[in-house]
C-alpha cells in the first residue's frame, strides 16, 4: 500500500501554494484585527508598535496582490471565453430571426390564400 507523503510548500503546485498563502495571510490579518490584539498593541513600546503596524500593512498588501492576481487570471479566462459566448448569442439571434422569417412566410401564405378564397369560392 502506497504511503502518502505530507504536502510541503515545495510539493504544492503554484496555484495551491498561492491559495495556501492567501488563506494564511487572511487568517493572520483577522487575528491582527481582533480586539485582543489591537488593545495589546496599544500597551507595547512605541518601536514595537510601529513595527507591528508596518508589518500589518505589508501583510495586507501581499494579500491584496495575491487576490488581484487570482481574480485577474479568472478575468483572463472569461475574456478568452468571450468569443465563444458571442458566437452562442449570435446563433440564438439567428434562430430568433429564422422564427421571424417563418412568421413572415406564413403571413404571406395566409394573405395569398385569403385572396385566392375570394377569387375561387369552391375548390
Amino acid at each position, binding site marked *: 500500500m502506497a504511503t502518502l507523503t505530507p504536502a510541503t510548500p515545495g510539493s504544492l503546485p503554484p496555484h495551491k501554494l498561492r491559495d495556501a498563502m492567501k488563506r494564511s495571510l487572511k487568517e493572520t490579518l483577522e487575528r491582527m484585527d481582533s480586539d485582543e490584539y489591537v*488593545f495589546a498593541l496599544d500597551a507595547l513600546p512605541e518601536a514595537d508598535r510601529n513595527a507591528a503596524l508596518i508589518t500589518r500593512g505589508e501583510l495586507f498588501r501581499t494579500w491584496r*496582490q495575491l487576490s*488581484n492576481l487570482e*481574480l485577474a487570471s479568472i478575468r483572463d479566462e*472569461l475574456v478568452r471565453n468571450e468569443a465563444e459566448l458571442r458566437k452562442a448569442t449570435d*446563433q*440564438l439571434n439567428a434562430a430568433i430571426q429564422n422564427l421571424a422569417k*417563418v412568421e413572415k412566410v406564413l403571413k404571406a401564405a395566409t394573405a395569398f390564400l385569403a385572396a385566392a378564397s375570394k377569387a375561387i369560392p369552391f375548390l
Partner: protein
Amino acid sequence: MRTQYWVGKRFAMLPKLRRTRVTLFAVCCIVFLLSGCGAARPGRFEAFAVAGTTYTKARGEFLRQSLELYVDRDSLELRKQHAATNLSVADRQQLLDAQDKIVLERVKIVDDLERHGDVLRLYFAALSQLSSSKGVAGAESAASGLAAEIGKLSESLGASSIGGVPIGTVLSRASGFAIGAFRNRALARHLEANAATINRELWLEEEALRLITEEMIADQTVLRNEARRTMVTVPYRADTPLPADWEKARRVQLLAEAGIARAKAAQDAARELRLAYEALCKGANENAGVTDLQSAVSRLVRFVGDFAAAQTQNP
C-alpha cells in the same frame, strides 16, 4: 356477404374528404412527434434565462459595491500605518502609492468583469427571447391564420371534423405544434453546440464571484470591527461616562455585523446559475434547480438593494 359489400363500398368509394382527413391526421401525428424531438423544455429555459438576466443586472451593482468596500478597507489600512511614528514623508508617500496601485489594478479587473457581464447579459436576453412563449406567439398566430384560411378555402373541409374536433381547430393546433417544434429544435441544437462554452463561462463566473464575495465579507468585517471598537468597545472600557447615543451605536453595529454574511448571496446565485444550467443539460428533475436559482437571485437583488440603501443612510 353483407360485410364484403360494406368493406368494398368503403374502399371503392373512398370519398375525397376521407382521404383528406387521413392525410391531415397523419400530418398532425408527424408534427406532434417532431415537437418532442428537441428534448428542450422552453418553459424551464425561459425561467433560467430570465433569472440569468436578473442576475447579470444585480451582479454589476454588486461588483461596484464590492469596490466601495475594497477602497474603504484600503483607506483604513493606510490610516493604521499612518499611526506609525517612525515614518518619513517619503515612506508615507511610498505606502500611499503602493496601495493606490493595488486599488487601481482592482478597479481595472472589476471594470473588465463588468464589461464581460454585458456579453453574458446579451446571451441571456437572446436565450430568453427564443425560449419565451411571447417570442413564438407571432409565428403561432400567423400559423393559426394560415390554418383558418385553408379551412375557408374549401367549404367541405371547413365543415368537417376529426374525432369531433373541427378541421380548422386541428390545423391550427398542428401549426402551433410545428412552430413549437421549430423552437425546441433550435434550443436543443444550441445546447448541443454550446454546452461546453456556457458551462466553462458559469464555472469561471462562480469562481470570480466566490473570490469577490469572500474578500467583500473580509473587508466589511474589518470595517465593522473598527467602527464597533471606536463607537462601542473603547467608550465602554474607559472610566469616563458613556456617550448619550452609546446604546444606539451598539445596536447599529451589532445588527450590521449580523448582516455581513448576506453578501454570500452573490456567490450562491452564481453557483445556482451553474447548477441550473447543468440540470437543463441533463434534462431530469430540474425544476428544483431553477427554483433554487430564482430564490438565490432574489436574495442577491435584495442584498444589493439593502446595501445601496444603507450606504445612502450612512455614507
